[in-house]
Structure formats: C-alpha cells, structure tokens
C-alpha cells in the first residue's frame, strides 16, 4: 500500500528473499504429482479405501490359486451349505455345491478386468477425440463437440443392451461396448483442458520450432493432461464395473461358465430365501469395491484438481 518502504528494509528483504529462494531450491522441484500425493495422504478415507482396494485386488488375483476348490467344482456332499469352517467352504456353497468364495474371487477377476479394459477403451477414444477437438479448435472443434452433445443425450444403457442383443453376449464385446459408449465425459474434460493448454508458452515455443501438430499433441498436450485423466480413470472404473454387473445381472452380460459379481448377485438373488449367503458375499465384494473406488476417485480429484466442485 504505502509506496515508499525505506531503503534498509528493502535491502534486507532482498537478502531475505534471496536466502529464502536458496532454501527453497530443493522444494522448487516439487511437481504436481508430489503435491497431489501429499494432499492425497491427508485424505484418510481415500487412503483407507486404497488399502482395502489393494487387498481386494490381491485376493482376486492370488486367491483362486490358493483355494482347494476350482470355481466350477461341484461338491455334491455339501450342496447349498451355509458358511462354515468345518466343510472348508468359508462362504458356503450354492445349490449345486460350488464354493461361493472361489466363485466370488473368480467372478471378481472378470469384473475388475472389465473395469480396466473398458476404461482403457474409453480412455483411448476420449483422450484422442478430446485432444484433437481442443487442439485444432474452430470448425473441427464445433462439429466434434456438437456430435458429442448429440450422443450424450442418447439413453446410453439402452444402447449397450442393444449392442449385446445384436452381437451376442461375448466378453470382448462387453469391453468394447461399454468403453465405446463411456468416452464422452473424458472427451469433454480433455477438450477443455487442451483448449487452455494450447495457448501456453511452451506449446507456442514448440510450434515456433516447427514441431508438427501430431508431435505437439503427443509430446506436449497429452502428458499435461495426465492429471485430469487420472482422476477420470478412477471415476470411470467403478462406473464401468457397475454397468457390467448391471448387464450380467439382467442375464445380458457375462455368460456361464464365466461369471462376474453381477451374475453372482443375480444367482444369489434367486436363491436368497433358502441360501442368503449366495447373495450376500458377492454383493459385499461388489459394493466394497465400488465404494472404495468412489472414495479414491474423490480423493484424487481433490488432490489433483482442487478447484473442481464437489
């Protein structure tokens, strides 16, 4: 405010600023990622969710190898038995004597796999689409984003079901169908981010050096989008898992002998009066997974993109 700080103070402050800058030298290298990691660590819900999630993934990946039963092994002596330690079926068995624990873990593999692959599909489509629209701008952008708006208004779940009806119910198609319909959010976010990135100095510098458009997108735009994209990946995975289990629940998704959490919940719901454990365990795994992913996604968003709402 007062425009004349006295000279000694100025001299001292220059020295101080310099010293402070020296002291901060090692701090200055802190990237967005380190910052985000520190912020994420303070979010207890996200960290706990992350740990639980890791345990679930570990159980699903390693578990089936350690169990004495295959998921499709039918133990006739213990058909439809409640959970017990004596029979060795910790989660009980279903009507034909299959071990629920083994089936739940085996089904979890499919559910998580769908989550990952379909997210990857939507990631590839969404990021390239959004980056191209945002980078080229103008008419290209307008046409591309207008198409996204149009597709956005379509009842997406019904389209996935339509796709399943048309092309039969195989697992590859589930990946592609869900991913192909789920890229719109990603495209929008990435486009917005690209629009603001393309006017930055370093992109201008690259352009001045004669780097061609494709290389600029690949080398300078996309890496800088990683933050937002990471957030949206963690938010997309649970959505995709949910869609898959929704389809499988309706009998339109994964088919026997394969199963997923959704398919298991469906089977369990049919037997729930006589054998509630066939419903409760897969349902619990599915819910815990979705719950954790949502918390991790929330935490990531707060950490990487603090200005975003909610």
């Amino acid at each position: 405010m007062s425009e004349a700080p006295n000279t000694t103070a100025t001299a001292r402050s220059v020295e101080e600023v310099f010293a402070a800058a020296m002291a901060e030298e090692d701090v200055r290298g802190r990237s967005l990622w380190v910052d985000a990691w520190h912020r994420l660590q303070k979010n207890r819900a996200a960290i706990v969710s992350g740990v639980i999630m890791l345990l679930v993934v570990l159980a699903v990946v390693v578990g089936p190898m350690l169990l004495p039963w295959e998921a499709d092994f039918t133990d006739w002596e213990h058909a439809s038995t409640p959970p017990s330690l004596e029979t060795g079926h910790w989660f009980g068995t279903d009507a034909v004597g299959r071990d629920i624990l083994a089936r739940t873990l085996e089904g979890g593999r499919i559910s998580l796999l769908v989550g990952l692959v379909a997210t990857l599909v939507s990631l590839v489509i969404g990021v390239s689409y959004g980056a191209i629209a945002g980078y080229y701008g103008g008419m290209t952008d307008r046409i591309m984003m207008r198409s996204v708006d149009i597709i956005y208004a379509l009842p997406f779940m019904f389209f996935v079901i339509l796709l399943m009806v048309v092309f039969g119910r195989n697992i590859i198609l589930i990946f592609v169908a869900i991913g192909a319909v789920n890229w719109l959010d990603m495209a929008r976010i990435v486009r917005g981010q690209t629009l603001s990135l393309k006017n930055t100095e370093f992109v201008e510098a690259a352009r001045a050096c004669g780097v061609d458009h494709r290389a600029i997108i690949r080398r300078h735009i996309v890496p800088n989008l990683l933050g937002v994209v990471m957030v949206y990946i963690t938010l997309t995975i649970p959505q995709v898992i949910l869609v898959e289990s929704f389809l499988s629940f309706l009998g339109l998704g994964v088919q026997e002998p394969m199963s997923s959490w959704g398919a298991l919940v469906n089977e369990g719901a049919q037997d729930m009066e006589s054998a509630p454990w066939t419903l409760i365990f897969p349902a619990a795994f599915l819910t815990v997974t979705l719950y954790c992913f949502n918390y991790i996604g929330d935490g990531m968003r707060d950490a990487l993109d603090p200005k975003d709402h909610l």
Partner: protein
Amino acid sequence: MRQESLFHHASSRLLGLVPTLLLLVTISFFLIRVAPGGPFDAEMAAPPEIRANLEAKYHLDEPLLQQYFRYLGEIIAGDFGPSFQYKDWSVNELIARGFPISATIGGLAMVLAFFAGTLIGIFAALRQNRLADHALMGIGMLGISIPNFVIAPLLILGLAIYGGWLPASGWDWSWQRGVLPVVTLALPAIAYIARLTRGSMIEVLHSNYIRTARAKGLPEHLVILRHALKPALLPVISYMGPATAAMITGSVVVERIYSIPGLGSYFVQGALNRDYTLVMGVVVFYGVVIILLNFIVDLVYAGLNPRIRYDEGR
C-alpha cells in the same frame, strides 16, 4: 426482452433435438439390421415358404434402405410396428400397457429423491464438517456405490421375507406393492442429490450476500429459505435431466426384481428373445422421453437462472 430471448433459447434447443432423435433412430435401426441371426431363428425347422411369408409380412425381404425409410416414416407417424415375440401385440400396445406403471414408479421415486435428497443435503451443509455431516455423507457415498440390484434383494430379504411387513413382489397399483420399488429406485438419486445440495449450499452460504443477510440480523432459517435455497438448488435442477435417464435405466432392474409388468420388463424380455421391433421401439421411445425431459429441465434452469443461461459451461 427476456421473454423473447427465453423463447429464442427454447426454439433453438428444440431444433437441436432433431439430429439427436434422428441419430437415435438410425443407430438403433442399423444396429438391429446388421445383427447376425433373425428373430425367426428360434422357430425350428420352419419350412422356407413359411419363413419367406413371415419375412414378407414384416418387410424383412426389402432392401435395407427401403426398410429404413419405411421404419422412419412409421416412427414419425408414431407407429412402432408389431412385436415379434408377443404375437397379436403391437409394440405401441405393449408400451401403452407398461409405461403407465413404469412412469408412476419413476415419477414417485423422482419426487421422493428430490425432497429427501435436498433436505438431507441442506441439513449436512448446516452441520458442515461435524459428525452428522460426515456420517450422512458416508452413508450417501454408500447409497451411490450400492447398485440397485443389490439394494433390492436386501430390502426384500429384510422387509418382506424376514420382516413380513411388505409384499416381496408383484404389482396391483396398491401402495404396499409400490413402496419397495419406489424406495429402491429413489435411493441412489437421494444420495446423489444430497451430495449435490450439500456442496452447492456450502458454496452459497459462504457468499457475500448471505453474509449481508446475516449481518442485517435476519434469522438463520429465513436466510436459508429466502436467500440461500434457490441458488443452491440450481445444480440439483440441472441434475434432474440425467436423473431421469438413471431412473429409467434403474427401472429395468427394479421391475425385473419385483416382477412388475412395466416397460422395463418388456424391454429385458425383448432383449433376451431378440425381439427386434420391441427393443427398438422401447429404445426410441425412452430416448424421446429422456431427450424431452432434458429439454424441459434445461428450460426450467434457464428460466430460474438468467445469469448462467448464455455462458455455457461457466
């Protein structure tokens, strides 16, 4: 002036719906027609003549493009054609039978979600970062995370089978049979709306004009009712469009679990039986419903909030 611009906004939006609808019809038509296997594959060992007759009856023997324009014309006339699976039923009749039930459940669920969600959200916002807030939002996250098809069997198990208070399934327009489906459908939306309301309410409560209102000595409940509520509800209003879509999707599952003969049940049955015309009819019909409701929501939003109307995406 404002009236005029609102009208302009409405008509331009309405015009924008045309390509969406056209795309909807076109995609579903061609998807269904490139499908391997026809609807009559199940009629085992049907002699070729009968097959040809069937295909002629449903115009499956015409060139694809001709079929497309025929279908387009029929849809514009509001005719979805006969169902392949339910003999003697047209898709229109099936929609007329199923939709009132689905719409009733969905509408009630929407009303419940709106009121319960905003009330919980406001309550949590007023207790920001206190125990009640954290507890409510934790439960809310659970509500978002638990899928409909997990909540429903659990509710049936607890309230119908063990408790015996409510019928487990079926439909006869009585409130007892309506409670569980409506609650199941509303729960995720309640959770989502509560989170939305809490977030925007907190933001609004930190704004300057609220401080002014408090400073002039207005009692807290009036500050909230008269000044904070309307702007805080705007995000909720704009969520009502996607919420409709979510409700319609959810109704498919809910109707199946509770054995309700709504449109969703027909749709799933049609999908499992490869009943082309029925599946397509429902997709197009629900597409139109979703698009129109989105449009209405958009208008309400623009009417309530002139400030945001023209700078899209803030």
